[in-house]
């Protein structure tokens, strides 16, 4: 899938001060039955956003009007743990988040982000907490690997390959198919028989 190249983002930070947020919370299973990638945003954090009558819960941060158009979510440790459902990333993106900042991420969720043009940023816990408390406007510049808030410039790390994929919006499968010769060579040597 060709992605939209990742541009600089300037947005208010939405603070979600929870650890171990699992993908069942990000998108509950009753919404996994769609067969397309779009339209999951309205189900994001569904059970936290809405009560049983589907009224907005006023105490949940996404229902706070200040963060209505936010594109950056700052969360606690081990974000995206549990199920491998990529629907979690589709829901975040469809809702409007394209940057997720956390002290740590679950592996599969972290990898899924890059396939969809979402940038997950790992920062020290104290720095994430500061961004959550300030909950102000920041600029995320992937090219320079910086987050600029009114009070500071924070540097973040990202793998060269992953950075390139995001900046150029590359279709990863098209890139891999350029390795056709290597894949065919590998298959000739492989000892593992077919299933059928």
């Amino acid at each position, binding site marked *: 899938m060709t992605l939209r190249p990742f541009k600089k983002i300037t947005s208010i930070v939405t603070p979600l001060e929870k650890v*171990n947020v699992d993908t069942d919370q990000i998108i509950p*299973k009753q919404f996994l039955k769609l*067969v397309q990638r779009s339209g999951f945003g309205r189900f994001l954090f569904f059970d936290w956003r809405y009560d049983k009558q589907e009224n907005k819960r006023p105490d949940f941060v996404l229902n706070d009007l200040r963060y209505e158009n936010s594109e950056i979510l700052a969360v606690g440790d081990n974000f995206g743990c549990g199920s491998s459902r990529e629907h979690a990333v589709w829901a975040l993106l469809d809702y409007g988040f394209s940057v997720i900042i956390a002290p740590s991420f679950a592996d*599969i969720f972290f990898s899924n982000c890059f396939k969809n043009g979402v940038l997950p940023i790992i920062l020290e816990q104290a720095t994430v907490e500061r961004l959550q408390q300030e909950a102000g406007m920041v600029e995320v510049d992937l090219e320079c690997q910086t987050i600029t808030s009114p009070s500071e410039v924070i540097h973040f790390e990202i793998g060269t390959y*992953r950075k390139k994929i995001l900046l150029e919006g590359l279709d990863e499968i098209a890139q891999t198919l350029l390795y056709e010769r290597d894949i065919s060579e590998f298959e000739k040597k492989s000892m593992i028989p077919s299933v059928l």
Partner: protein
Amino acid sequence: MLLAGYLRIIQTGIKMGKTLFEKIWQSHIVAERQDGPALIYVDRHLVHEVTSPQAFEGLRINDRRVRRPDLTVATMDHNVPTSNRMLPILDQTSAVQIQTLEKNCRDFGIKLFDINSDNQGIVHVIGPQLGITLPGTTIVCGDSHTSTHGAFGALALGIGTSDVEHVLASQTLWLEKPRPFEIRVKGKRKNPHAVTAKDIILSIIKNIGTDGGTGTVIEYRGQGVTDLSMEQRMTVCNMSIEAGARAGLIAPDEKTFEYLRGRKYTPDDYESLVDSWRDNLRTDSDAKFEKQFTLHIDDIAPQVSWGTNPGMTCDVTESIPSPDEFSKGNSGQKKSAEKALDYMALESGTAIQDIKIDRVFIGSCTNARLEDLLEASKIVKGQKISPSVRAMVVPGSQMVKRQAEELGLDKIFLDANFEWRESGCSMCLGMNPDILSPGERCASTSNRNFEGRQGTGGRTHLVSPVMAAAAAICGHFVDVREMDLR
């Protein structure tokens, strides 16, 4: 002198032993990039109805084919009803997902075990049962519990839908190399019928935390692991993801080779493969792990989860800890424990055995194999479930169901007022009609006690099959070690 010293270091570096994971990894590298990941070849790709529709759609849009349909196998498990298979599927969106998988498999030439197949079942139950799972292979599936197949000494990874599409198109994946993590399970359980593989893995997660394995591939080693049967090893590896690990595996041994011998898709030249596996598939004695943890199991108790992630677990003989005791000074964990107790409607200090339950679910890719049902049936035999409890058994596959029925297990469960269902993921994640009502409390043999996992507002306690069966009879948790297990 100095130069000789350097040479020695270089030589040692070259000769340093490798872990089993590193051997499998290395033997599957197709290409490596200077800037990070390696392109890893995939030997087996398992596909199911929920995480694949968008992947096949991606192939169509880009006019791509499935590179190796002969290495790809599909089944439907996540949202299939477990009631009468002759009736139509009432949930229209589930029906569409199932029809979509049928069409995709037809269009792209992929072997499908559909809802009426004798071999239908939870993808992680049927892979090993059919001899599709093999030692030393790389296996992927768009499901986090793919780690189950690591019990056979395979590198088995859960992946997202974009990666499913990537594997369909190229039979490869770009992966950053995880770090090897050794978990040594030492000792011998005093009562292996009452203290099970589920209690071992829950104890591990309780100790290392739900992110203790992040970025790693766990190798489970030691007598506590080699003593386990293949089905028990699958229970352990299954929940590696619940500790955050990329995968979990166990070196194959004679039990592994014997389990796979003569199964439906076991390769023709199986014995020669076994010879090479026996020689190669083990961690060298001088290999280095980047992380280590040891669990002593001589005295471990049956485990019961009390919170909303699998790390929130304690012994059946204990009381629910206070958020302060649980969090050991971590403010995020403390808040999360407080929220968990509120969601679970439980108070610190309550004895686990005083918790009454409404529902019992024996099923899932963690604990719905023949041995699980057989062990649970020993508790149930000749008893009735508590009148306040509704209990169901959902075999992991149609094959497990048939084998159990041949042993008469269905009658034992039905006589005790359990429901006996068709196979599928069922109430492990509640995508089909099997769900908890808000506020209901369930003793479940599944793998996740997340908020709403088994139904919005439902409360899940993770336990072993024998603990679930005992809770069904008594209406509350009991220490199964005190029951007669014959």
